[in-house]
């Protein structure tokens, strides 16, 4: 679906934002591009959506070199930006209806899209009266209006409350189920962990690691389990104990704790994506 080889991009001022990165995305995959601000993830996305020209390296999208695509590229590609960009004097429905007419291929009914993200009651409200979260949801569904094969989404859950954030994640899973490929740029590791098939860490214009969140957790986590428990009938504070996962069933001490105490939590100690990011790049995400 998308293949990038030795991609570099230098801004007119001389700043080299992307330095020889390689990755590929399979059809129907949700690929997370993770990194702190200024790491090069937005530059990479801008190159991939043909906003930035003059890159070095080779990019093939939908079976054709990116250089050879014309504006018909966007018939098959949907883009949602990090910041909302709508006609403030038009309503949500009018915005979607306008963008709908710009595509040649079959498009979705604006009402259906607005309902998907819970904006059906505000369909005829001017965007200038929308909150940032509402505008972000509209940004997101606008990218879906022409049912593209490939989606580029930049921080789609930014500014959303947990309920709406979950709604967006559910829609993304549904899009994947329908066979769409999604390139997701984010610094929200939780979102990436929950919905991405694979993630790439980018720092200082270079990709340091690409793998599935599960593999990364397994590779970089500690194979241990932590138990928090209370001695029954006492007012003593909560106690903790850690045990190796290997041979856990044969650990008498672990079994004794389970049998004779009130267990509050038991968690395996796999790393979070954020932990792995910090561990592998030496950088934080903020």
């Amino acid at each position: 679906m998308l293949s990038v080889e030795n991609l570099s991009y230098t801004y007119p001022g001389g700043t080299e934002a992307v330095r020889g990165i390689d990755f590929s995305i399979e059809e129907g995959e949700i690929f997370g591009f993770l990194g702190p601000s200024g790491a090069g993830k937005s530059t990479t996305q801008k190159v991939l959506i043909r906003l930035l020209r003059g890159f070095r390296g080779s990019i093939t999208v939908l079976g054709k070199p990116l250089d050879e695509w014309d504006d018909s590229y966007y018939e098959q590609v949907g883009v949602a930006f990090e910041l909302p960009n709508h006609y403030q004097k038009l309503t949500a429905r009018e915005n979607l209806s306008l963008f709908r007419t710009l595509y040649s291929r079959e498009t979705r009914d604006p009402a259906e899209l607005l309902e998907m993200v819970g904006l059906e009651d505000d369909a005829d409200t001017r965007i200038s009266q929308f909150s940032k979260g509402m505008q972000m949801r509209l940004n997101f569904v606008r990218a879906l209006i022409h049912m593209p094969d490939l989606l580029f989404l930049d921080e789609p859950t930014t500014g959303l409350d947990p309920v709406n954030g979950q709604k967006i994640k559910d829609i993304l899973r549904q899009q994947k189920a329908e066979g769409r490929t999604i390139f997701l740029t984010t610094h929200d590791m939780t979102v990436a962990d929950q919905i991405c098939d694979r993630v790439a860490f980018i720092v200082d214009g270079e990709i340091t690691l690409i793998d599935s969140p599960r593999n990364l957790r397994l590779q970089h986590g500690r194979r241990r389990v932590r138990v928090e428990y209370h001695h029954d009938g006492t007012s003593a504070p909560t106690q903790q104990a850690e045990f190796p996962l290997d041979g856990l069933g044969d650990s008498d001490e672990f079994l004794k704790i389970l049998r004779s105490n009130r267990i509050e939590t038991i968690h395996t100690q796999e790393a979070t994506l954020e932990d792995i990011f910090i561990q592998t790049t030496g950088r934080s995400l903020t």
Partner: protein
Amino acid sequence: MDIQRIAVLIGKDARLGATNFMVVYVLVMPVVLSLLIALVFGDLLAQTPRLGIYDAGASEQFTRPLLDHPSINTTIYDSEEALQSAVERGSEEIGLSLPAGFAASLEDDSAEVDFTVYRWGEAGVRNLLLLESAVARAMTAAIGSSIDQLPVTVNAEQIGSANTQTWSQRLLPLLLIMSIVLGGLFFPAASLLDEKKDRTLVALTSTPTSLLDVYLSKTLMGFILSGIMGSVILLINGAFVGQVALLLLVIALGGLMSSSFGIILGSVSKDMDTFMGIIKGAGILLYAPGILKIFPQVPEWIGRIFPTYYLMNPLLEVSQNGAGIAEIALDIAVLALISVALLLLLSSVIGRQQQKLALET
């Protein structure tokens, strides 16, 4: 370039433009000014021809038909000085100073008819003709035959500044520049600046719509508005005469120049405040030829320094002096050259805007 998408964008721009106060103001203002000027200076509700008479005595037989004339407004003055003063300030367009026994002398074949006529320097030709005709008819009626047979001596005297152009004619160039240039310039600029403010340019160019489509739609909209505005102003001012095809050609070239300039200004301006600052600062350069035309004593060559002269002058030449293509060919050539230069500059501006879009997103 996609015609269907450009049409969609024009529809959207027309709708959003109608809610932009500055755009509406710029489009409505020249029309309102035209109507006001026509109202004040007489072309729209042309005032009744005004005749003043000082009768030194016993000429009521001559003055009565003029006082009763339904199409002219006649006033009798007590003294010649009062009559002269009224003509000088334009209250009367023609003043007749009749000597004592004027009416009797008309009836006496042997008497010599001698009187003085004062003419207001700024009186319009139409009213002068009507007044002269009415006076001649009154004299004929008084003597019962043509006044050609009488030894009439008319002492004609012009009072006030002489100007063959009415105020509405003198203000027409300014109105034409305001309507064609501002009408064509403001819409594309304001529309592009609104897109920048809402960050919708990048949203549009992330669809099959190209930046060229967006720019073309706005330039075309400015061009159309400019053409409509120019034609409406010519019509209101009764100047849509002569070779209409030539007028339309000049308006079209002027519209192209203005809308290209407008979209370039919209591109290079950071926001509406910057754009308005440019217009306030440099607007005088656009208006200058129109302002200079108000003062006929200013040498014509000064106007030629300004690009809008080459839009204004051929329109005036065709509509007021009946000029043909040969007389205005040079102006049209200069106007076309300016338009082509602006279009070339525009293509470079679009390239830069594409880069800016990527960097600012």
